[in-house]
Every structure is written in C-alpha cells, then in structure tokens.
C-alpha cells in the first residue's frame, strides 16, 4: 500500500486517457521502489521543479553510452530512487516484438530495475527507467547472455538508428527501411557504443516522403524513400474513386462532413506542382513536373502507387534548436539506390565520407548540421566531392558575395601597385 500521499498525482488517475499514475501504483505493489518514484514526482508537482541531480557518469565496462546516470536530490526522503539510472536497450527495427521477447525483458527489468519503462524513447530505444549503479553490469550480462540483445547509444556517438515500418506493412515504402536500419546498426556497433564523434549523430530511415519516423526533422543523416520513374496509375481505381466506390484517403477523413469526394478539388487542385489533369475520365500526370509530394497517393492509395524504380533521397544535418536554432536536414543526394544486395555500400560510402570530414573539422559538441552552417553549404558540397545542383537549394543566393578562388581569376591576384599607378594617377 501507498508509502507517500500523492494528492496531486491522484488527480491524474481520472479521465479517459490511460493514467501512468494508476499504472505506477499497480507496479508499486510488486516493486515497492515505485512508491518513491511517485513520492518524488509528487514533490516535484508540489515544488514545480525537478528533483534529479545533474547527470552522473555511469555505464558498463567498455561502452561509452547506453546508460544515462541519474540520482535523486532528495535521496533521504526517497531512497528507492536514490540511484535512478536509465538503460537504453536498442530496439529491433520498426519495433515489432514477440510476447516471448517482451516478457523476458520484463522479467530482467523486474530482476534488476524499477519495473518502469518508456516504450519507446524519442530516438527509438527501449528505455528502462531507473536502476541502481550496482545493477547495471548484472543487467547487461543477462541482457547479452540470456536475450542476446544489446544497448543503444548515448553520448557523442552514433545514436540508435530508427525507421518507419517500411515495407513490412506499408504500400509506399520505396526501400527496405527496416533492413537498412538493422544492417547499419549492426555494421556500426562500435560507433554506437564507443563515443568517437564531436557530438551525437543520428540515422533515421523513412520509406517515403511522408516521413513517418520524422527523419528530416530529427536525424543528422536521413534516408527517405522516393522513386525516379512515373507514378503508377490504375485508371479503373481512379474511376472508382470518382464514382465514390472507394473511400478517399483510405477513410482517414471518414469522421468529417466533407461531402462527396471531388478529384478536382481534393487532388488535382492541391497538387503543389499542378502537374495533374483529367482527360475524360483518365487521370494524367506529367511526372517530369512531379516533386513526389505524396499528396495524390495519400488521397487515392488504391489508384496511385509510387513508381517502380525506387530508392531514396539523402538529407543531412537535422537537429534540435540548441544552439543556432533548429535545422531540418538538407537534401544532399537526390536519388540513391538502397539495397541489401550490395549491403548498402553506396549509402555507407556517403556516411563515412561525411564522418571523415566531420570528425576532422567538427568542433566539440558541434552537430554535423552546425558544422555545415559554419563552413557553408558550398564548402560542404565541395569536400563531399558532390556536384552542386540546383536541387541542393530552394533558390539561388540573392546576395552577390561570392568567394572567388584565385585560380578561377585570369591573371591571379598578384598585382603590382606601381604598375597600376603608372596607368592611374593617384
């Protein structure tokens, strides 16, 4: 039974959304330290401030990441959370599980930790929330030996890669996001576990431009599926949509009173490039003008499918606002084939090209996007050995401040002022 009064938290037991308070209370019956989680959180609710100390370097031998150390700043009151370290367990691609696997993990966490988790962390890991320092090595031993699983990343290293569910259950996935994610995770175990970078580095893989794993917003290296040929059109299905035999958007708007589906208003007019039109009852697309924004496919999934020649775009440098303001990833490679056949070697080449440069010029705690900002996109593209293309930018520069190189300028830069003065009196 409850060890602390939690009048404030108890307020969060009502309401239709699942209550983490109720859940923790239930867990506390089996794992009494959970009462102290509630107790300290109640105190934070009362004081309106966190009660965790700053950081704390803990980990398992030989790894530079995977554990986030955490200590209570009121341990006397809440001994159960005096140590409350997080363990980041690397999730399987796209987060499918067998109950057997999950039950085993729960069993381990019951044995070694608080019994509380996050399914999942924002980066993608399984977050096991709260254990004592002494428990870390035994847990790691059991995790590796009993389950054959491993930790994810933290610190200035490669962070745990993540992906959308890709081809496993999505008709739009233009490459095997899960396999790419898994393969590169295995390929870079050392980079994940042993910090060697200026700062953190994140991979994310989305099968199509809908970007369901938010790669473009959150990863230093975003691989986002696309295609290079034409959208595949099933004209019969188009007619069915127009006739109202198929619900548009797969029914995503079923709850609204939007009236009958209107292909002109809802698809053709909303195409950002205006590259669609009807010829009689046939839908036409000028694919050369298409930017593969997915809108028409999203609205008519049964009539329109991505082209058959599939691959991905690679965008680099997304990050949160600290320090220079948030950055989205910038399009660097417009199209690349992504396939297990060549063990993703062409993608790996791009990655290591970036790393080699960043590890050399990147400052401490400087994300690759920040390094790109500092040296400028032209320099970045040059050092990557990539041809500059208009697709790299939204628009050309509007200022005339070009850094010309001496070798580009006829006659070079050395000039003789006296000779100049001979022709131009001062």
């Amino acid at each position, binding site marked *: 039974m409850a060890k602390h009064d939690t009048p*404030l*938290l108890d307020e*969060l037991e*009502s*309401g239709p*959304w*699942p*209550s*983490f308070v109720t859940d923790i209370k239930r*867990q506390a019956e089996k794992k009494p330290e959970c009462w102290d989680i509630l107790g300290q*959180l109640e105190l934070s*609710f009362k004081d309106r*401030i*966190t009660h965790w100390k700053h950081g704390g370097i803990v980990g398992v031998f030989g790894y530079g990441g995977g554990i986030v150390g955490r200590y209570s700043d009121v341990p006397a009151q809440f001994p159960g959370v005096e140590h409350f370290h*997080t363990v980041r367990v690397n999730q*399987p*691609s796209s987060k*499918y*599980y*067998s*109950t057997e*696997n*999950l*039950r085993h993990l*729960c069993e381990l*966490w019951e044995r070694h930790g608080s*019994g509380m*988790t*996050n*399914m999942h962390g*924002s980066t993608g890991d399984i977050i096991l929330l*709260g254990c004592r320092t002494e428990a870390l090595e035994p847990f790691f031993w*059991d995790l*590796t030996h009993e389950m*054959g699983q491993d930790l994810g990343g933290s610190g200035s290293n490669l962070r745990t890669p993540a992906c*959308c*569910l890709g081809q*496993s*259950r999505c008709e739009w*996935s233009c490459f095997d996001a899960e396999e790419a994610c898994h393969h590169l995770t295995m390929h870079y*175990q050392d980079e994940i576990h042993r910090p060697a970078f200026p700062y953190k580095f994140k991979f994310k893989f989305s099968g199509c431009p*809908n970007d369901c794993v938010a790669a473009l917003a959150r990863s230093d290296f975003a691989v986002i599926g696309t295609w290079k040929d034409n959208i595949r059109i099933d004209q019969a299905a188009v007619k069915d949509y127009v006739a109202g035999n198929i619900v548009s958007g*797969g*029914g*995503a*708007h*079923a709850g*609204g009173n939007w009236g009958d589906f209107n292909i002109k208003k*809802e698809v053709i007019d*909303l195409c*950002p490039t205006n590259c669609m039109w009807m010829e009689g009852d046939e839908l036409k697309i000028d694919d050369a003008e298409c930017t593969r924004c*997915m809108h028409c496919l*999203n609205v008519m*999934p049964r009539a329109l499918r991505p082209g058959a020649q599939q691959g991905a775009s690679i965008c680099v440098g997304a990050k*949160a*606002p*600290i320090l*220079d*303001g948030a950055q*989205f990833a910038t399009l660097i490679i417009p199209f690349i084939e992504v396939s297990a056949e060549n063990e993703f070697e062409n993608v790996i080449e791009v990655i290591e090209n970036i790393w080699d440069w960043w590890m050399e010029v990147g400052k401490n705690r400087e994300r690759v996007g920040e390094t790109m900002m500092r040296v400028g996109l032209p320099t970045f593209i040059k050092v990557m050995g990539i041809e500059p293309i208009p697709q790299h930018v939204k628009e050309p520069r509007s200022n005339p401040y070009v850094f010309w190189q001496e070798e580009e300028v006829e006659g070079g830069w050395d000039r003789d002022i006296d000779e100049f003065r001979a022709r131009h009196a001062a």
Partner: protein
Amino acid sequence: MGYDPENPMADRITDIGPPHYAKFYPKVIADNKGKWLYHEITQPGVLMHKAESGDECWTVRVGAARLISIELIREMCDIADAHCEGKLRFTTRNNVEFMVDSKDKVQPLMDDLASRGNKFPVGGTGAGVTNIVHTQGWVHCHTPATDASGVVKAVMDELFDYFTSMTLPAQVRIALACCLNMCGAVHASDIAILGIHRKPPMIDNNRITGVCELPLAVASCPLGAVKPAKAEVNGEEIKTVKVNADRCMFCGNCYTMCPAMPLADPEGDGIAILVGGKVSNAKSAPKFSKLVIPFLPNTPPRWPETVAACKGILEAYAKDAQKYERIGEWAERIGWEKFFEKCDIPFTIKSIDDYRLAYDTWRTTTQFKYTSHTATYTG
C-alpha cells in the same frame, strides 16, 4: 551462472546489436512484406492493409502513456497471445499496434481491449489527434522546465475525442519537450508544448570547482553571456564564471555543460506553445513550429492553461481549415494575423524573432490583412 563481479570481463558479450526484426513479424507481415497494395482505415484506430496476395493485415492501434510498467507490458502480451499469435508492435509515436490476419478477428480483439477499462483506448489514426510524443520531465530528467507525462495526460484527457475520431481537416501531431533541448520533433509539430526557463542560471561557487570545466561553461553560451570570473569561497579565491543576465535567453546549455549553473525555478519555468510545424513532405515542405504563446505557468497537476490553449487552437483550426490542410498550411493561407485573431490569442512582441535568421521573418511587403490588431490605425 550470471555476472561475476570478481572477473567482470570473463566471457563478456558485446556489440551484438538488436535482434533481427523479422523474427518478430506476425505471419501475414512476413508473408507479404514489400507486397502491400493499399490500406484502409475502416474505423478510428483500425487499419486494414491489403496485399497483392489478397491477404489482409488488420491493425488495431491503441494509445499508451509511454511511461508504462512491465505489468502493463505483460498485459499487452496477454492480449497479443490471445489474439495475435503472440506478436505486437509499437509505433513511432508510442502507440501499440495489435495485428490480426482477418476481419473477423478484429471484434473479439476490440472487445478484449474494451474490457480492460481505459487502459487501451483504440484510435490515433487518420485526420485526428494521435498520441503526444514527449520526453522525461520531472520523472527522470535534470534539466526540465516542466513535467512531461503529467501535462500529456491532462491534454490527452481533454482531446480524447479527437483521438478516437477522424473529424479534423488533417492529422494533428502534438509533441511535448520539457526543455529547449527538445528531445523529440517538437520543433516541427502541429502543436508543440515546450518547457522553458525564464531565469538566468545561478552560480554555485561552492560546487563549481571540480564539477565544471570553466572554459567549456564559457564556450557553451551561444550569446557569450557566460564570462570567467573570480569569487571567494570560505576565505580563498576561486576561479568561477559570471552570467550577464541581460544577454541570457535561458537556453540552459550552460547548465548542461556545468552542474553548478542550475536555472530551473518554480515561477521562472513554464510552457511555451508553438504551432504550425510539420515533418512530412506531403503537399508542402516541412515547416518549423512558430511561437504563438510565449509563456504559460506550470500548474500541476492538470495544467489548465496549457490544456485550454491546445484545445482552443485545435477548435479554431477544426472550424476554419480546409480538408487536408495541416495547421501550419492553414495559418499560412489565412495569414498569421488571422491566425491570432481566429484563435483569439493575444499577439506579443515575444513572437517577433530576434535571433540569427530573424530578418527573413520581417514583413517586407504592403500585403497584409486588417484585423483587430490594426484597429488602432484604421479606427
């Protein structure tokens, strides 16, 4: 036999990575991977994916708190064992998905879920509000300016009907980050709930020596507000830092680098609301969320001001936006001046950018709409 503290390195296993995902596929997924034809959302929270083979994968999506116990995970496993050949998955927004291979297995699954109180709400699909991605807050982190799980619970309770329905113009993605580090894609969310500090760091001179590399602390400040300094600690002079409070914009990066510079504070901390961000490349390019409410107080346990703000924005949007229009696309179409008017949010100077790329946000045209804001000029 398990871990032996005596010789920790003995038959140690490392760098084995995660298990191969394919082991965990339900059969219908394994059979049809890469051969899906299309999908349908047959009702809120229920997806049907049709494969070339004719197979169907029926997915029931269930909301979860993300901060969950192993007890709850075990209960999820019970459900998966009973209905889903012992398989399940989690989404990128922390919902749980139970998959079955035929329509007739859906209802029994739904009944089972319904029988378990409010633990497993079905929804989060299509043009609605899905789960809020969020971070640690007071449950685990050292730098938060607000809590995470508590705020999320309060907001989701209020917006629950939008989770279980698909009545909005488009999907609405809400995210919470408890400090400016913004763990999670808060900076590109339809509605972002962001914990912010408003008091400059204190300097703990008793503590700074040793725990803090002064040059790093000084370098940590994007605005150069942290400068080397000296102080006297019981009699003797020590090297420390000082903060030029007027140049501080409370990002907290100095505290991240130096434990002796705490800035959290019950009155100083609170929540800012940013709106109009999106991640997908659908229709329009990804957009950053924009700051529209600079500060709301931390009011546990239910943060009524924050809850009301989210609901107000959502309802103004639901009322006014066109089908398929994300919140940011709506705001840009009607113009931000109209956004503030329609959402009845007072415009403050805090919404005007003065950081690095600020100039690009200034209005350099005579094109604008008259609103309540211009009444003093036209009245």
